[in-house]
């Protein structure tokens, strides 16, 4: 079945079984591998993308439910890695293995849109992604840092 998708502002038509999860369409059909597979049950958050602006775990979203939606992936978070979160992530050396970090960044980006100056509690409630390396302390710090930079430049 031909399904029309809009990913990072670009139109795609994909011939795929409509029950295929968005995650696997992004990765296998569109070759966009920045969005990761971690658990397949929407628990870990490695597959987080924005669906019409909301942080969404793409491993459990059938592609038919994402048709015609506005999808944003890590590849589209910024054109050149200059999103305040990406910069803060590098400044504070957040990643360890890095595998969960695209999902973390996407969750954090959605949070900042909703709450530009989040508290620790906001972060804890919103960024529920799993990181096995244990980068949480730096993730929090980097979100605050990005919020601070965005706040002062605005």
């Amino acid at each position, binding site marked *: 079945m031909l399904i029309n998708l809009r990913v990072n502002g670009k139109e795609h038509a994909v011939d795929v079984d409509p029950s295929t999860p968005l995650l696997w369409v992004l990765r296998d059909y569109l070759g966009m591998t920045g969005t990761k597979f971690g658990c397949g049950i929407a*628990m870990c958050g490695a597959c987080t993308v924005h669906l019409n602006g909301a942080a969404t775990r793409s491993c459990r979203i059938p592609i038919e439910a994402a048709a015609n939606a506005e999808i944003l992936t890590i590849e589209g978070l910024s054109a050149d890695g200059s999103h305040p979160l990406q910069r803060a992530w*590098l400044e504070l050396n957040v990643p360890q293995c890095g595998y969960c*970090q695209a999902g973390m960044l996407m969750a954090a980006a959605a949070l900042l849109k909703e709450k530009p100056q989040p508290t620790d509690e906001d972060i804890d409630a919103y960024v529920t*992604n799993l990181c096995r390396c244990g980068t949480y302390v730096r993730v929090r710090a980097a979100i605050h840092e990005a919020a601070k930079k965005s706040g002062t430049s605005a």
Partner: protein
Amino acid sequence: MSAEAPETGPQDAGSGRKLSRRTFLITTAATGGALTIALLLPRMRGKSARPGKPAEVGPWLTIDADSNVLLRVPMHESGNGAMTLAALLMAEELRADWSKVRAEPIELNRDARENNLYAAIDGKLSTFSGRSTTPDTLRTLRQVGASARERLKAAAAREWDVPVTEVEARDSVLTHVPTGRTLRYGEIAAAAASVKLDREPEVDAHRDLELLQGRAPGKLVDAQIVNGTSVYGIDVQVPGMVYGALMQSPVHGGRLKRYDFEAIRNMPGVIGVAVVDPDEPRKRLKTPINDGESHEQSTIAVVAEHYWQARQALEALPVEWDDGAGARWKTTEEMNAAVLGRLDRPGDKVEKEDGDALGVVQRSDRVVEATYLTPFSEQAPLEPLNATARVTDDKVEVWHGGSIQAQSFLIAAEESGRSFEQIHLHQTMLGGNFGRRNFADDLRLVVAVAKKFPGRAIKIIWSREEMFRQGRYRWLTAGRLRAALGKDGLPQAFHSRLCRTGYGTAGISNIAWTNGAIPNVRLENSDLPLHVLWGSCRAPGYNSYAFMAESFIDECAVAARIDPLEYRRKLLAGYRDPGWLKCLNEVALRAGWGEPLPKGQGRGIAISNWGNWVSKDLIAGTTAAVVAHVDVSRAGELRVLQLDIAFDCGRVFNRDAVEAQMQGGMLFGLNMALNEELNIANGRVVEGNFDTYPIRRAADTPRLRVHFGGLSGRDRFSEVGEPPVGPVGPAVANAIYAAVGKRIRSMPFRKHDLSWS
């Protein structure tokens, strides 16, 4: 190429296991006995560099016309920063501009084709794997940078016709000091490649890194991580690639009985199935990890055009298994009873006997005894197991994010039966390791499947459930510890009896208490081999054994009515490694040990060491001391408020990277202690995903405080990934006891009732 080099470097050249020493040995053979360092930079190819093509200054590095430096390093990135540190060490001596340095893993196929250019690919663990600060590796990396630098300087001196002593190298620029003339590295690299030195420069491998200058450079891969372009094994894309999903015998060691391909033949995208038969004869090589952890399991794989199609088809495929002997274990409790029951009889082996521990315990009227249990647990790196392989008539190409390149390479050679020259391993990044990617068990199965589809590149990805249930787990261990307390309350004897389904005892056998601090010691071990597979898990067994030893010392302190910190201080008073006491004092001071706390709160302390057995006097490895501060509600809800750690790995290069490992290691140890457990039902592993195997999230993260005041400054750069994991569990258990008087003797802690009134 006959220049002589000093036979021994500034540190222990005695070990023949490591990279540089082995390279030296090969050199010796190649040059008929004259020991030279030149093979570190063999085959200078001065004339071969064409304009626009990067000049290879020996196999370790190339420099292009714009002075971009590409370093080839023996380790890759798995999250601990080892690859970046390796590059820093080389760039330091090279005096390279760090902003123009890239690194990539050494290509083992080239090593095989070019007579072990870098080192032999064999069963040695440390050659092509994840650490950059083993003494010989340190020395090799810095030597490579220094030797290349001297060639660049010599080439510039030749160009200017000046003495080389007047040439200075810095930030990838060569300067003729008296005249101020300069050449960029890129301008002279091709000429440098043909320079022959009379002698290689000397290197002080343990000098601090000037490149750091107090900065904390991130990993070389971080920019790609945050923009989503980094390539993990799971992200590999090969033209024409197809996908697979697989299932192994749910009871480890079982066999595939029958399946019905006809039932799925016409499902969308399905290409075929492949069976992996563990009984098929195979080539066996000596591999770095060869305890059976990489051995093939009975497997069926479905190959399809797309991954989701393969998953769907596998789920629909009718399959029957012959479970084999493992199925007799009906429940976890049966297994626990087996290891616990084994503690009633003397151990199979006595690992250590100092003095007369049994006699002292028998005669004592102050005996403390406690029995502990730690369950199977899974490393659970976030990237599911996977590999990609293509087998053709003359080539075996594999793409794999293993943690030990040599292991991946050798397993591909074993499973394909091909010669080393035909194995092309493309090393990718790893989405976490923690020991799970050591074995290349995933790569083995993928090669086995790809063999049956010649010419096709096949990527197989494990489901999370398959990965959980086909693990190489931290094994099940029961331990009974006994001590006889003297008049001063300190143990006069320490007697342990362990029964384990894996191996090792670091955490009990290598600690201060059993190596001089207590006069009479007897350590007994028994093995109970089970069908459940096992392997390294952020230090093999260490977290279990440290939990037992440090909980037990706490119990002794309580029995002696002495503060647990003071008790350990007394025991460490004359201990040969003063780093232990330094860590203990540092962490206690920083954590505010002894300051009053409200009811329901408590602090606990624990200390251990990982790695000190590399030295006979045990003044080695990394000692880590942790203080946990917990709050237990009346209803029994546990909150860990703060973890403080002090450690002694000797010295550190990159403080920020070490801090990251300490933070992550503490959280790993915390999750293990509080949450992790795999159960067995009818021989099968029950838990299959994060819904039943909880991993703590940002909201559950205590304050983590890393203190550097425990460093002894001794001349070593010991590992920092594993050591923090051990003391966290017992520190928390001891804090719970301090808070509410309940002693936790088994993991996971979440299963214990901590309520109080």
